[in-house]
């Protein structure tokens, strides 16, 4: 479970106390709408025989493509929803922080989970393969004790080509951890200019 109204209210108050504004970002529905409109259109065109392929080999290819496309059109919006939708805070022009609250309803008997957690991540700060920026990023991460990987599957296995700062907090230390990631962005913003020169 990702969100509860009381947790959202709590985060909102803490962010407000720091002088920023909390915004709710929901962009997964756009990808859902576009991808699924195309799916419906394709299926209608096939149903009314507007698309009709006579060549058996091409027909098999088209069917295969359609099945893959239908699968993607459902999974991408779901993945998007879990990876990028959430609460955002615009800290400066071109810099924002994404908040993903997680609340575990079911208690595990084996593991002692932290019940309420808030994953905090920054926007993409640089391309991973830029050597100088990667070094600066690593330095900031080390000095600020920031976790290197975020919870999403793409980032967990190092598949993302971009660098972004990540932090984890509970409601109790939320403000301090939020300040830590914003200070990391501030440091990045200042130091980045010296690299560009």
């Amino acid at each position: 479970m990702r969100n509860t109204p009381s947790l959202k209210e709590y985060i909102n108050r803490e962010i407000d106390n720091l002088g920023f504004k909390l915004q709710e970002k929901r962009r997964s529905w756009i990808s859902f709408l576009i991808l699924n409109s195309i799916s419906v259109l394709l299926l209608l065109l096939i149903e009314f025989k507007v698309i009709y392929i006579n060549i058996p080999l091409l027909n098999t290819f088209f069917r295969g493509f359609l099945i893959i496309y239908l699968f993607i059109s459902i999974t991408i919006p779901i993945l998007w929803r879990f990876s990028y939708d959430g609460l955002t805070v615009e800290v400066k022009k071109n810099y924002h922080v994404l908040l993903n609250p997680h609340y575990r309803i079911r208690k595990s008997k084996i593991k002692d989970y932290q019940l309420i957690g808030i994953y905090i991540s920054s926007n993409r700060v640089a391309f991973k393969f830029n050597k100088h920026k990667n070094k600066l990023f690593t330095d900031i991460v080390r000095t600020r004790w920031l976790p290197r990987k975020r919870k999403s599957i793409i980032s967990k296995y190092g598949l993302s080509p971009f660098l972004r700062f990540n932090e984890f907090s509970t409601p109790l230390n939320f403000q301090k951890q939020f300040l830590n990631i914003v200070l990391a962005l501030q440091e990045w913003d200042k130091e980045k200019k010296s690299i560009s020169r």
Partner: protein
Amino acid sequence: MGLSYQDFVKKYQLDDFKTGLELRGHEKINFYNDLNEIFKVICKIFDKLTTISSLRGGQVLMSLAKLQTRESVVNKTDVKNGLNVDRLEKLMHAFDYLEQQNYIKIKRKTKKFHIIQLNDQDNPDFKLFQEIVQKFWRSPQEDKESIRNWSDKK
């Protein structure tokens, strides 16, 4: 009297960059022992801070250590502002706990105005704690001001 970082720097003239540091024989042993003593106290401070069971107790102690060096009179609201906490009620438990532990002294001047002080008479290690906090720690209020300035700058 507790161990002091400033006394240590003064004793070996570590802040005098015109002359080189030369330690011979017993001097070197004393230097090594003094350094170890400082680290021992720092470790004790870690231990005490991590065993404060009140949720914001450690933060209250740090904020107080920072404020006390700057201002002669520190009250509960100053600590609350230093920690950028919205309500004083969130810190009440911490104040009570720290008073019980004899880490701080609270002078109740009026019903609402309470002056608080670090109890460095009973806890001599607070001297070093205060010096470290004053020199290296940034309070949430300072962090907030720093990011606000950065955020407002175009």
